[in-house]
Each structure stands twice: as structure tokens, then as C-alpha cells.
């Protein structure tokens, strides 16, 4: 049996982390290919149900990343997002989600090296958690694909 390769759904803000991922690619920085990136206009656009939906459909990990506080393209989107993350992070860990499955970071579009470093860290932590069993649906609804 081959080694477990985690599937990770990554929600990146269009203005910062998505740019960092782009820059990392253009700069030929190696990072693991375990992400399925969803581009958001801003981390403030992230609804907590997206995270749960990803886990429900079989993602082994979720990574959310946006602009550093103070650098939001929309002035305060990430400040608002941070408050939601504080509650959501607390709640999901309190109900038994492994701490290594859900990751948050601030990566600016110039920080390709930080992107590479955190991408590796996220994949390793999710890999250590093993496949997501507890937060996935036993049987998916008709027409809904699993995270590819």
C-alpha cells in the first residue's frame, strides 16, 4: 500500500496568499502538491460552512490564508475574519477536531518563501493526523463529488 497522501482544501485570498503561491511557482520554489486551492476575494468572504463542507466531503485538512492584519485590500476584511476564526478554531478543537487538520496563516504576496515553508508544514501536520474519518460524511449525496 502506498503512503497516505493527504488532500487539503486551501482557501487563499486573491490579493496576498494567492499571489504568494504564484510567486513561489514562478520562483521555482518546491512545495508539496497536496492542495486544492479555492481563490477567495478576501478571507472575510470565508463562511465557516465552507470549512465544514470540505471536511464533510473528505478533505483531510483545510488551510486558510490571507493578508497580514493591516494589509487587507478591503481595509478590514481579515480583521473581521480573524474574529470568526478565533471562535471557529476554538469550537472545532473543543468538539474533537485534531489540531493538525485546520490551519490559518497570513502570507503576503511577496512572501514566497514563507508560503513554501508553511505549505510544507501544513502537509506534514495533516499527514501526521492520518485520513479524515471523524468529520467526513459516511455516504455522499447524489451528484456531490468527493474532494478530488
Amino acid at each position, binding site marked *: 500500500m502506498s503512503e497516505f497522501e493527504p488532500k487539503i482544501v486551501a482557501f487563499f485570498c486573491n490579493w496576498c496568499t494567492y499571489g504568494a503561491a504564484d510567486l513561489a511557482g514562478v520562483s521555482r520554489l518546491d512545495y508539496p502538491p497536496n492542495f486544492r486551492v479555492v481563490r477567495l476575494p478576501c478571507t472575510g468572504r470565508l463562511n*465557516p*460552512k465552507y470549512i*465544514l*463542507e470540505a471536511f*464533510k466531503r473528505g478533505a483531510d485538512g483545510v488551510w486558510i490564508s490571507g493578508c497580514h*492584519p*493591516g494589509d487587507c485590500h478591503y481595509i*478590514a476584511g481579515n*480583521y*473581521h475574519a*480573524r*474574529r*470568526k*476564526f*478565533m*471562535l*471557529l*478554531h*476554538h*469550537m*472545532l478543537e*473543543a*468538539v*474533537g*477536531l*485534531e489540531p493538525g487538520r485546520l*490551519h*490559518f*496563516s*497570513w502570507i503576503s504576496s511577496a512572501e514566497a518563501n514563507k508560503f513554501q515553508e*508553511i505549505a510544507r*508544514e501544513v502537509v506534514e501536520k495533516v499527514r501526521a493526523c492520518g485520513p479524515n474519518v*471523524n*468529520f*467526513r*460524511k*459516511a*455516504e455522499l*449525496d447524489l451528484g*456531490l463529488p468527493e474532494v478530488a
Partner: protein
Amino acid sequence: MTSLPDLNQKIQSAAKRLLAEGKAEVVIGCRQGTTPMTVAPIFCRTEDDCNQLIWSNFAKINLATYLPKYPGKVAIIAKGCDARSAVGQVVEKQIERENLYIVGVACGGLVDVEQIQAREPRPIRAAEEDWATIKLSGDGWSSSLPKEDVLRRNCKTCVSRTPEGVADELIGEPTEALPADDYADLKALAGQSLEEKMAYFKGLVKNCLRCYACRNACPLCYCPVCFVDETRPQWLGKSQDEMDTFTFHLLRAFHCSGRCTSCGGCEAACPMDIKLREFNRLLDEEVQKDWNYLPGLSWDQTPPLTTYRPDDEADFIK
């Protein structure tokens, strides 16, 4: 302490006065239910309606739930938690302050019918109540219970029994607020293993039918389309899948974070006796710890998720 008949009298005359003076087109309150130990909401437009108004230890519904449905001038006969929810709806701009008149009634805590039935398994045909005791009777028997022994869980940690400060008028003698919830059980749970935590929370909702009675009873759940009813995309499957049910409870609680007044309406409405508030309490604890916020206590509060501080501490973000 004002006796219950006196209190009812005062509530009824206040309601009649408000209708006569035109301060309200409808007065929302409680009336006796059709079976023992139940109450029903009543929407008073005439004097006759007003004569049915009561205050009851069994008034488990949060009357603020009905407020956003009335566009005109409305008065509400409010316990501490009803008043806080009504204030929350004004703060969240669901109703206009000038259309709302709060008749605050000092509350001494409500009782939990399930706990009464557990202590008194014989069929209960009638229940009489006063401030401190519940008298039960059935075929050829009668007994009485001290109210303190069968208080609802949320009433044991109520910090707003008397809606002082926000009520337009107050009926009854103010009752002391109780020591706030210390979340000791949740703190103890936080120290346990992931498996134990998950087993606890999934166990809580394993009987859930997803009837959404908790949502319908909740004064915070006024969204025109709830996320559970959205179909494109469909966030929650319609089957009894464990994860769909769990997601519902997590998101329901999340939507109430920083807004829940611990009225216990969700638990009271639940036909399966699920301790729904455990999920809310998880978030209440965090909201109070991080932002020291209690909803519904003043008209000019800013709900914590609609604002931010540049120095909010979130050390889990890399």
C-alpha cells in the same frame, strides 16, 4: 414577593393600558396552555385577550422570537431573557426601537417540565404554581415540589433575571441576578482526549431528528432563508447522516455566537431532549473570554462579530 395572581393582574392592566393609549397595536405575552404545565403565546389586540395574560414558571418560550414578524408597534411582556433578545433584535436592526415597548417582568427562574416528569412519573392532571413551589395532582394524589429543585439549567446561571435598564416599565419586585456560568464542565472536558470530546458532542446530538424546532424557537434565527434550507449549493444533506446533523449543530451555534442570551428556548423546544446549549456555551465562553461581551444588555452595544480590534489575539494563526 408579589403573588402570582397579583402579578398577572398587573400584567393584564399594563397590557390594556398600552392598547388603550395606542402605545402598542398588539401585546405579546403568555396564556395558560391547554394541558397542564404548558403555556402558549398570545397576541393581544382586545381587552378580552389581555385578560388571558399570565406569568408562569412554565413559560419556556422566548416571546422575542415573534417580534420581527410584526411590522407595527408591539409591546412584549418580557422576562429577563426575552428582553435581552428583544434588545439584540433592535441592535441587529431587525426591529425599530420606537416600535417596541418592553414590559419587563422580574423572573425567579423557570422550571423544566422534563425534570418534573422524571421526579413524578404518575400522570399529572393539573399543576398549580406560585413563586417557590409547584403543586401537582393527578387521579387521587397530589404532591408538591420546591421550584428550586427543578429549575431549568440555564435559569441556574441567569445574570439577567430582572430586565432592568432596558425595560420601558417594570412589573414585580426585582430579583437578584445569579452567579454567572463558570463553564467548569466545559473546562474539564477541554482537558480530555480528542476521542472523548468527540464522543461527548456527537453523543449529545445522536438522537437529533433535524426537525429544526430549536431554530424556529430561537429569537436569533430570523434569516429569511436558513442555511439548512439552501439547495444550490446544498450545505446539509437531507438524510440522517451523522456528519450532517453534527454540522447543523455546529453552525447553528456559530450563528448564535455573541448573540445568545441563554434563554434556553432551543432546549425547551427540542422533542428529543438534546442539550443544545452545550454548543452555544462553548462559544459563549470564548466570546466572554476574548471580548468580555454579554449580548442584550444595552441599546448601543456592538456585537463582537460585526467589529474588530487591530490587536485581537489569535496566536494559532501562523
